[in-house]
């Protein structure tokens, strides 16, 4: 079996984002998606700190401390982009104006609950940022994560054991093993890694999973 690499996962997400979409890419893994959006496809990247039309990282030496993204990394602004204040920026998110957001996660439940802000550990200092606003605000919430924890447990669960970020908010999950839709009828795998058997995927996932992979349907 050949697990999807992070770049393959990001490329797969990028393929699902159409031209003209307004998109927020969360901190971490989702950031890589930007590298895979074709240059000729106009996609509008939003950053919650007050930026629409975010461009790539600046050349070395061109960094501007006043032009950063939500991860506090230096970025650039595309021609046609705009700046605005925080309440306006979150109005975009909470008012349903973003077409897609892509978030990392600790866990996603079978009903689309998302846990990605807090391990709940006694010693952990919690920090939430804009995660809860993105979870409930975007029209489509995509999650990118490893399918399993380091100890081999499925991160797709019947119910989140970590504190949730939002309820029933995830639409699609991209992992190193599969692409899974959260539907009213339950979880549906729509793609999986080469050499992986659906039965094996279902076993690893550990919660009810339907096979909606095109080749499987065709077969």
């Amino acid at each position, binding site marked *: 079996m050949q697990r999807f690499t992070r770049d393959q996962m990001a490329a797969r997400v990028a393929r699902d984002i159409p031209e003209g979409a307004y998109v927020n890419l969360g901190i971490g893994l989702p950031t890589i998606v930007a590298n895979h959006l074709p240059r000729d496809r106009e996609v509008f990247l*939003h950053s919650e700190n007050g930026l629409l039309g975010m461009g790539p990282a600046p050349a070395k030496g061109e960094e501007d401390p006043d032009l950063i993204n939500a991860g506090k990394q230096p970025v650039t602004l595309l021609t046609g982009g705009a700046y605005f204040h925080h309440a306006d920026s979150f109005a975009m998110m909470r008012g349903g104006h973003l077409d897609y957001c892509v978030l990392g996660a600790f866990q996603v439940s079978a009903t689309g609950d998302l846990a990605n802000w807090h391990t709940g550990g006694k010693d952990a200092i919690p920090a939430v940022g804009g995660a809860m606003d993105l979870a409930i605000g975007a029209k489509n919430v995509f999650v990118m994560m490893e399918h399993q924890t380091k100890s081999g447990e499925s991160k797709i669960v019947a119910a989140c054991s970590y504190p949730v970020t939002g309820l029933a908010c995830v639409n699609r999950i991209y992992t190193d093993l599969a692409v899974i839709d959260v539907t009213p009828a339950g979880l549906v795998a729509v793609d999986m890694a080469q050499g992986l058997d659906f039965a094996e995927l279902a076993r690893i996932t550990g919660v009810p999973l339907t096979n909606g992979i095109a080749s499987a349907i065709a077969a």
Partner: protein
Amino acid sequence: MIDKIVPSIAAAVADIHDGATVMIGGFGTAGMPAELIDALIARGARDLTIVNNNAGNGETGLAALLKARRVRKIICSFPRQTDSQVFDALYRAGDIELELVPQGNLAERIRAAGAGIGAFFSPTGFGTLLAEGKETRVINGRNYVLEYPIHADFALIKAERGDRWGNLVYRKTARNFGPIMAAAAKCAIAQVQAVVPLGDLDPEVIVTPGIFVQRVVPIVSFAASAVPQAAA
């Protein structure tokens, strides 16, 4: 390439359907998208709910839409004016429904729709006829009335300049309801005095970012083009 510029004003309003809720920008005639309203009249959609600060002036623009009997209900703050004869006659005849809203509640309810707020406690209107039947609450010793967002299917607004991404800037007090209506509507249609190339609008100065705007239609209105475009 994304291009929100719609060359024909008729095409811009072609899908405004019977029964739609349509926000119309403007305070009196400042910022009123006269050409879009004319196109809406030509389009012929009926049973509309209109959201505007007023209820038409004279016989043109919103007043003409009312006169054509396309409006079932109007949500506004100040219908009665010296030249609101079209509305006055419809209202007296019982031919139009009026939801009268204090202007600040109107603005804030429109803003709330665009910002995803479910409802808010407003300081305005407590103890008045316009809060009758509404939920109230005392918060920190002060009286508030619960108000709900006003969403719309379409917003028709007027801006000064726009680009193909839908970024807009306005002119003087014609700005008024434009930015908040654009955000509150599923489909915001902006008529602009001029379409400019992407990048012409300074990113620090864009008032309505394109995310809130679905269509931009260039219009040359003689009244406005006669005055200089720089700020006073």
